[in-house]
């Protein structure tokens, strides 16, 4: 037996790698019973093309006639047999979706108010599930975030705030209508409300508090319940709930995209763009960002893993040495830093 064993220290592997950009994002768009897919599998869609007709006031009703015995939930059905539609290839507006078949007979989904969900980016339809959703393999690239509220949406990207600052409501005006705004470290619920009112298409922020998220979702739900037509608006949260500046590599990509058309998609939560040069903007392999502690938000170069060290509150943790952008050499818990893959 021997104690001599010296493989290469897997030091950088100990730093969590965060996926920054993917080139093969498949976007998922939720549908509910009553919604109608306006595309089919294999179909190429352009940005702005109608994907889904959504019923805003959908409710189950008893149809005027019962469908054929072979009918299944999710099938489309025209409850007025013998009627001759003159729609020149478009879906029959009186066509409804079969919801379910209780003992008392079939129920269908009815509704009079609808709007369309447009493709936020170009791609090819991969899957369509009646009443559940559809998937589109997107062209271009996707800068990955952690969560999206609202959306999807599309607009011109504007760098409106310092990556470490908080965008104030007063900084938004109608001149930003139709844009997706990079808002810095955090936004308030008031800023989001004003942004929607000013016609913004979206906000990109490093972090969003749970209260702001809850307020925003409640506002969305109220507006949907009122059956107003809602312009697309999305909030892309890059990091999560804990306050901090936008990561440098993400800033670099978005700065390269300023003035271009981009899109926010909710699933996966991401900023979609087609600019190949921006996508190629990647940080060096040893660039890391500190996410917690007194140096949270700083970025630097990972030097080495140091093994277990004692930190504040007498906590033993795997440690690493980092040289920050301002030249300081600091020792941090390895779990407090991240790199970008």
């Amino acid at each position, binding site marked *: 037996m021997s104690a001599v064993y010296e493989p290469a220290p897997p030091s950088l592997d100990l730093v969590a790698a965060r996926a920054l950009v993917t080139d093969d994002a498949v976007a998922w768009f939720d549908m509910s019973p009553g919604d109608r897919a306006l595309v089919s599998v294999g179909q190429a869609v352009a940005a702005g093309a109608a994907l889904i007709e959504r019923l805003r006031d959908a409710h189950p009703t008893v149809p005027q006639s019962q469908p054929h015995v072979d009918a299944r939930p999710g099938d489309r059905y025209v409850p007025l047999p013998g009627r001759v539609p003159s729609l020149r290839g478009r879906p029959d507006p009186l066509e409804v979706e079969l919801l379910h078949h*209780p003992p008392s007979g079939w129920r269908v989904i009815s509704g009079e108010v609808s709007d369309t969900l447009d493709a936020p980016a170009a791609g090819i339809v991969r899957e369509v599930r009646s009443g559940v959703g559809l998937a589109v393999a997107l062209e271009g690239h996707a800068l990955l975030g952690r969560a999206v509220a609202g959306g999807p949406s599309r607009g011109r990207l504007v760098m409106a705030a310092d990556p470490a600052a908080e965008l104030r409501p007063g900084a938004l005006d109608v001149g930003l209508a139709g844009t997706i705004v990079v808002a810095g470290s955090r936004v308030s619920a008031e800023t989001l409300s004003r942004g929607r009112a000013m016609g913004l298409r979206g906000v990109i922020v490093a972090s969003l508090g749970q209260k702001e998220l809850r307020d925003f979702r409640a506002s969305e739900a109220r507006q949907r319940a009122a059956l107003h037509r809602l312009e697309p608006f999305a909030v892309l949260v890059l990091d999560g709930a804990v306050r901090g500046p936008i990561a440098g590599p993400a800033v670099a990509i978005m700065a390269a995209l300023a003035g271009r058309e981009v899109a926010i998609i909710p699933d996966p939560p991401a900023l979609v763009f087609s600019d190949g040069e921006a996508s190629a903007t990647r940080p060096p392999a040893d660039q890391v960002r500190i*996410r917690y502690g007194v140096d949270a938000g700083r970025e630097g170069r990972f030097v080495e893993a140091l093994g277990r060290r004692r930190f504040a509150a*007498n906590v033993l943790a795997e440690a690493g040495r980092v040289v920050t952008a301002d030249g300081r050499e600091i020792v941090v818990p390895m779990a407090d830093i991240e790199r970008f893959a």
Partner: protein
Amino acid sequence: MGDPGDAFVTIDHGTATTAAAVVVRAGGRQRLAGSIGLPAHVGDEATLDILSRRLGEAGEADGLVDVGAIAGLPRLETRTSAPPVLVVLAASVRGRDRLTGLARRAGWLVRGHDLASEDARSAVIALTRRDVSAILVGADDPPGADERGLVGDLAAVVAAAVARRPELIAIHAGSMGDLAPSVASDGDDIATTILAPAPLPDDGTDDPLVTLLDELRAEPDDGRRAAARALGSLARVLDRRILLVDVGVSAGLIARADPTGPGGPAQVRSAITAAGALVPIDLDDGTLEAIAAWIPEAPDRHRLRDRLTGLRENPNGGATGEGALLRMAAARAAVTRLADGVTWTWRPNGPDLVLVAGGAWSVAPGSAVALALCDALRHDGARSLGHDAARLLGPLGMIADEEEREAVVADLVDDIVVPLGSVVMPALAAGRKQHGEMTVRVGGAESSLPLIAGGLELFDLPPGQAAEAVISFSDPVVLGTRGKRFAIDVAGGLGGLLVDLRGVPLTLPENPDQRRLRVDAWQRAMWAGIDG
């Protein structure tokens, strides 16, 4: 596992961290050579690589195992992952709440719906969301008065859901089983339809429906189920009643093993719940307040919610300084939720040993973990406290042969149970200013200290040290039984011997400043270097 005489490796893949350990044979028995816990993203091989290097550097395994060959040793592996989503659909609110409670005890992340309070379209939407893995639809057998008119609708809604998402598992409980064939004829492409018994009327802990749901949820290498199996072996080896609380990022486990006598298997009960996670996904106001109660600082509730959400999103980060205190506060609340979620935590008698496991405990010193257990588990009695710091129980539970498993557990018992100390927790008579005295006899030496109601007394008793504590009070107290004088065998540990006279249950001051001062004082007494 191969020959139990061989060295082997255990790997417990958690949601946030991976724990690896090397077990070797030395002096005719197996023992732990070393262990490590690293973030899950590091991967098995890199984790074993680092463990091998550290063992080599420390000389811990000299002559016992070739550290260069550790990666090639036989492995016992377990895995815990985020609970899958199950949607309950019932005819009535009563049925929904009952099925939801049972499904939660089986480890699922559960969303409850009923046709009494929502329409069929809403129910179909809930059943067909992309993150849903299974549907539990149920009604009493025969259907209750509040269900009878809706069972046909229930079946139709489930058929509508599986027609849209054929990969769903549809579990039909109770009288809904009679309607399952008609469901299948409506949706020919149902992948899995399972007939299940109706819930037992007494909502008992051994409900066959819970067992079935647990079987459907867990993979064969599920770490928490395996840990419960190994706990039975440990209870037999130690001949003690053991309570295990495992707090993880995605779920928690509470298990209790009671020896049943010579030669008999231990009785093991367990519950795995998503609500037992360090920070549950349903972070409601009550959960938030329960955590806030144990934080010495004065957190703004919105900021605290954000910090806890951040902890759930990145459980490995920010674990030092204030982050360590936040974790321990969340762990206390999780233990309370786990203990309150089952009926058998303290029945028929309190456990002799409370064992903790899971990544939540790794940030704090042993003494602080001991205090957290005292804070969260309030019941009169005397018990030892231990920590499965190397996370061995789960992997050892993968040894299928009970005798072999018990033999390995017997060898490794001192490595499985890292002693945190002992706690003596009497229930004092309400409204009396009691006082008393404790005399601790260690070998031939004897020392005494006064006891005052409301206090938390600490006696330094190091790991491996056994002692007799004689405790006397001015008035009768309840300590397993009612009396004024008790002689108790206690064992030392990283937290020593704690005599907890703070009351059962523990009532924290209503005034937030007073509460914070008190929590801070308790923690400072038990957490060396808390300000470091």
